[in-house]
């Protein structure tokens, strides 16, 4: 995702002037982002953007506002997350891969993954989750399966999934089976792919 694509997709919002003005003000006076961030949903709408599947107008507008900051992205993103409602927190999480924050946003991912709010758990597992260490990332993926977040939201799923994760998923599957419950299809599909990969001879042994 890029700011330009978000900007393009937001052209049709009910009040595009409000957003344009807010972006200009944030660039000149960063402190104004607090008010604009809170108001973005009611000014830009909260529905899906027709030209940008997977993005709502409020998420896109808030991410754009963060990218418009002239500096101090990490500090301001942290503050907006800590003081944000659920929608604001989600937008900060989605903005992280677009911001020059290094690994400073990782504590926010941990916070989001601790919640049981599926919107936040999902938003924490986008491209920025590459900064999560393997144990935290595996636990987060397992949590997705556990609380019903589709695995399609997990960035780099197949590249990062390892035998350790396969073991954790299989154990959850066994618990569910013992209780007469099933696993979501995307989880069993992932397990199948991991098993197929494990069954293949290692390149050096081939």
């Amino acid at each position, binding site marked *: 995702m890029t700011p330009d694509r978000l900007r393009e997709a937001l052209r049709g919002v009910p009040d595009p002037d409000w957003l344009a003005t807010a972006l200009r003000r944030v660039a000149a006076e960063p402190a104004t982002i607090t*008010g604009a961030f809170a108001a973005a949903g009611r000014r830009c*709408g*909260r*529905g899906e953007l027709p030209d940008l599947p997977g993005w709502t107008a409020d998420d896109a507008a808030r991410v754009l506002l963060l990218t418009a900051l002239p500096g101090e992205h990490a500090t301001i993103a942290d503050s907006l997350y800590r003081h944000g409602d*659920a929608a604001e927190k989600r937008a900060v999480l989605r903005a992280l891969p677009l911001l020059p924050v290094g690994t400073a946003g990782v504590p926010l991912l941990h916070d989001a993954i601790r919640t049981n709010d599926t919107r936040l758990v999902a938003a924490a597992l986008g491209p920025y989750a590459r900064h999560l260490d393997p144990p935290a990332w595996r636990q987060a993926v397992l949590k997705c399966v556990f609380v019903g977040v589709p695995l399609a939201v997990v960035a780099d799923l197949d590249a990062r999934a390892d035998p350790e994760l396969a073991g954790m998923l299989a154990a959850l599957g066994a618990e569910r089976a013992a209780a007469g419950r099933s696993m979501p299809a995307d989880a069993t599909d992932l397990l199948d792919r991991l098993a197929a990969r494990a069954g293949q001879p290692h390149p050096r042994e081939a």
Partner: protein
Amino acid sequence: MRIFDPHIHMTSRTTDDYERMAAAGVRAVVEPAFWLGQPRTSVGSFTDYFDSLIGWEPFRAGQFGVRHHATVALNPKEANDPRCRAVLDVLPRYLEKDGVVAVGEIGYDSMTPEEDEVFAAQLALAVAHDLPALVHTPHRDKARGVERTLAVVAESGIDPGRVVVDHLNEVTVKLVRDTGCWLGFSIYPDTKMSPPRMVELLRAYGTERMLVNSAADWGRSDPLLTRETGEAMLLAGFTADDVDRVLWRNPVEFYGQSGRLDLRDEDLAAVDPHTGNSILRGGS
């Protein structure tokens, strides 16, 4: 029957309640910030609670198809504890949030000087943030409390049409009816109002500016008494349209004044009489 409960403390209720409410027709609620039974001793306890009202609780409600909004304030009881006074300083941040549709519950508990001060300060916040106000009236010394409440509201300069005076009954309704404020009635199993008594008040005073809520919380209360009141209205000869006005359109009109109600999936019947536009913004 579609129902908007304009005052219910869902934090204290279980998912069973959400299920039963949704099945009974409750599609939207407003959860006012109030006290939790156990007094709090620091500002952090309040911010965690407010964060829950604009974070976790709307998520929980959404799982049952119920739209959740909140009102935020320092409640009258805890206004008396100096350790809680700094809550006033964090309120402006919350009063800008999407899901916050009024300042509340504010008003009186024991009518102390501290409550005077905090009540007036929060009415000023309502004006500053362009929000309506939800005013709790005391359970003891109620009539005097309502009179004093109305005096403070008048003095604050807030438009009375943006104020609901809540927990009214047969005695106190008379004091509020002609002030221009909205009238709130909490229907409780034993105390406050009952469905048959509420029907009598609607007969006597009409349906305009009347709000009926369950005020269900951690005490003995019942989140389905809004529905029961609607049924009692029908049995008493009120029309389905009367019931819809009291249980849906009135709360939508009152809280719609915030410009922040989010009822995207609902049939939005409330229209601004001046512009002809929906008074709800922010949906799509």
